[in-house]
């Protein structure tokens, strides 16, 4: 069985974000069931932690972070459980859910968010099934390239990140200048 705890992050074009503005938005997502096929539970506020997870929409299947790691704000989708499918399907699904969340945030006009599609951060939070080593990279590279090409077009380039202690992570340079809606409309 392959890993399923995939994380996908798309960065905002806005440099700085007032994290407090996300809290009522995420509470509304819970109330309005904005992600209908997932159970959304609560909102965790980590705005006090610099370069941390920011504000987290806690769900049962997945969490959605307005993550500010490395001082680069972005929407981080994080699957925790509940996906049956092969590696490609799992990665595609994670990309799709991240993009949909970005689209939802862009629709929150008070936030004024716009997400870039030129770069995607991908990480697997499962050291047992996806240790940060060459074999994992070789196993994931084709599926990541296919997913990136599928959603963003063109020929992406991949950059493996971190060391052995870190979770397996890849930065994908897509070369895309399109918007989130374009990416979602491609499939």
């Amino acid at each position: 069985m392959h890993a399923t705890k995939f994380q996908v992050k798309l960065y905002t074009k806005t440099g700085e974000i007032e994290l407090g503005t996300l809290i009522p938005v995420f509470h509304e997502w819970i109330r309005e069931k904005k992600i209908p096929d997932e159970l959304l539970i609560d909102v965790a506020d980590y705005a006090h932690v610099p370069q941390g997870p920011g504000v987290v929409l806690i769900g049962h299947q997945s969490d959605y972070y307005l993550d500010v790691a490395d001082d680069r704000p972005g929407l981080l989708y994080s699957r925790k459980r509940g996906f049956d499918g092969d590696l490609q399907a799992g990665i595609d699904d994670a990309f799709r859910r991240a993009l949909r969340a970005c689209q939802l945030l862009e629709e929150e006009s008070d936030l004024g968010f716009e997400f870039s599609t030129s770069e995607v951060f991908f990480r697997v939070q499962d050291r047992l099934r996806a240790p940060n080593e060459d074999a994992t990279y070789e196993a994931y590279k084709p599926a990541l390239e296919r997913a990136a090409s599928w959603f963003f077009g063109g020929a992406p380039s991949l950059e493996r990140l971190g060391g052995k202690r870190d979770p397996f992570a890849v930065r994908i340079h897509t070369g895309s200048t399109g918007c989130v809606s374009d990416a979602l409309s491609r499939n």
Partner: protein
Amino acid sequence: MISWKEQLSGRIPEQLGGEVDLFEGQIELKKQGKIDDKIFAETRLRRGVYGQRYDNGLRDDGTGQRPLTFPCGDLTKGPDTVWDAPGMMRIKIPFGKLTAEQLDVLSELAEEYSDSILHVTTRQDIQLHFVHIEDSPDMMRRLAAVGITTREACGNSVRNVTACEYAGVCNTQSFDVTPYANAMVQFLLGHPDVQDFGRKFKIAFSGCEDNPCGLVTFHDLGAVARVRDGKRGFRVVVGGGLGAVPVEAKVLAEFCPEEELLPLAQAVSRVFARLGEKQSRARARIKFLVQKLGMDEFKRLVAAEREGLRYDERWTAFLEDLHATDERPVRKAGGIPSDASARFRAWAKHNLKPQAQDGYYVAVVKLPLGDFTSAQGRALSDLAREYTGDSIRCTVEQNLAFRWLSGADAVAFYERLDALNLGEPGAGTITDMTSCPGTDTCKLGISSSRGLTGELRKRLSVIQEDLDPAVKALRMKASGCFNSCGQHHVADIGFTGVSRQVGGRKVPHFNIVLGGQWTENAKSYGLVVGAVPSKNVPKAVELITKHYLANRNEDESFQAFIARVGKKDFRKVLAPLQKPPSYEQDPSFYSDWGDPREYTIGDIGVGECAGEIVPFVEFGLQEAEQQLHDAQDALDAGQATAAAAGAFNAMVTAAKALVRHLDVQVKDDPSDVVAHFKTHLHDTELFHDPFAKGKFASYLLQMHGEKPYENADREIAHRTLDEAQLFLEAAHACYQRLTQSRAAVAAE
């Protein structure tokens, strides 16, 4: 497919591995419906697998309570606790000591199973939140592989043994308590004599009497290092505790020789297990047993128990090598460079403390609300490997202490910390607040202690360099409810979450507690001055500190100032802040910090003009509060008996108001009030707190029966005031429940 169990084969101690396998088996049996809910709940608690807010499958989204429909259906992991609901894992870190490798693994677990945040608790544990129970066995295996167990981190057992984070490197210690704390941990973990407690049991060690790091006076069992005639031993205290009513521990032994420490702890445990309360959870801590028996009788029973103990070689085996727990520096000692930057010096002023060993320092990493990220955790373990070795300690003030830092490396260490956003100055000052999880994740939270603390931090951090040193030195601590996990009783300025009904809506408040003493192992506890709406607490802090600065005598400490002027002065200061604006004027008061949901539950009072009609019961509750304030003033004035009697009268007044609210005719005579209160509010359980059950009602009933307020001394008066305060809070809560219930009936 390989599993963590296979992956870590050979690296997990056999016994720990077996325990985790057993727990995993119990999880499977529970899923098959073969284990009773209550038994499984206690089983998982004793493995550190704790409940979390909304785990009953219900959550108020600000417009009403809605079900959280988890895929597990009816499967539960305890009474009213849904299987799939996220929970918390409490990871015991004995006396807070961590190695770099352990910190790495904890960081891995935080990002793979939690939300990438590691939280340091006020008991030197690490907590991870939003964890699924089915992930817990693998988490335990990964921890076991680096020597950590979650066994007995929760439940009715010996909780994490705490100790001063400076133990072994402190300038004021009698000797290093680390080997003794370690021996206590090893001896009592899983010991048959500590498996049948009615409640939890907390142990703390301190190396000296004067400093606060060990905080032994509010522990079930505390040991303070002492040397007598060249021989090592401990002053042992017993029966302390914070909780709803704080109690200072009493001396069990002025000098317990080192070889007698473990057998004494065992004897105490056996007496507690045998005679401690088992039915009423609210009176099951050892402090109640000590109170009930009296210290002389308790001592006699412990001595008799000690006499009958069968010899155990572990009592003294550890004494053969007291250096087994010693840490070794990885760098040579050195002095701090004289040309260090101003930023470094500002940090070093409060965050760097010289060790007893020349040329070495303890660096305190100030964590915001006790939180750090997985990425920071890994970077910190790198720092430990490079500069200090395996000498990290979680502190009771929710920070991390790195010991054995060479002065020559201090600047480089600071710069690395700063690059990790962990170079914040002001450890142990007013900006370094502690807080329990509160309504963020705790099932019992009433107000958002973390939200409040985060807001105060944010505001004070901006002005910290300009703060008067006397204000900067103050400590603030917040608890989200009366259970006091934020240790607010021993802060200069403490906060405890309460709610109030205003104009038909609930408003989050905090009781302001002043006058607690952090030093001398948390020697004395503060008292409530009054409740302030959560959103007015920052202003309240500003007014309190200004009042202190403007009116203190030269160099007068905050505590001395409070003792001199009394709390009455502060009540005047706070009075303008105590009434929130109406909902129409400012609805923000009706939400808590960091949470936009309306604090009110359900539809009660919404859209009505009830706020302009004050029911009689509210006048009665207000009158009771005034009586309690007067009683507190009497105590300040040294009139203990009057204070205790006043506290009792306040309870009677509140009880009378509630009884009358039920349309029951009652006379002003206290006996009549208490009799009707018992019949209509206690026996019917209307007054019962959802968590504490009949605990608060029993304060009134016992006080009326036993009349401790007659000829009360200061200690009894203090306890009576605390109990009256809690009774009044419970009266407010009861009134809110009665209002809701009437509204629900009306709606039908």
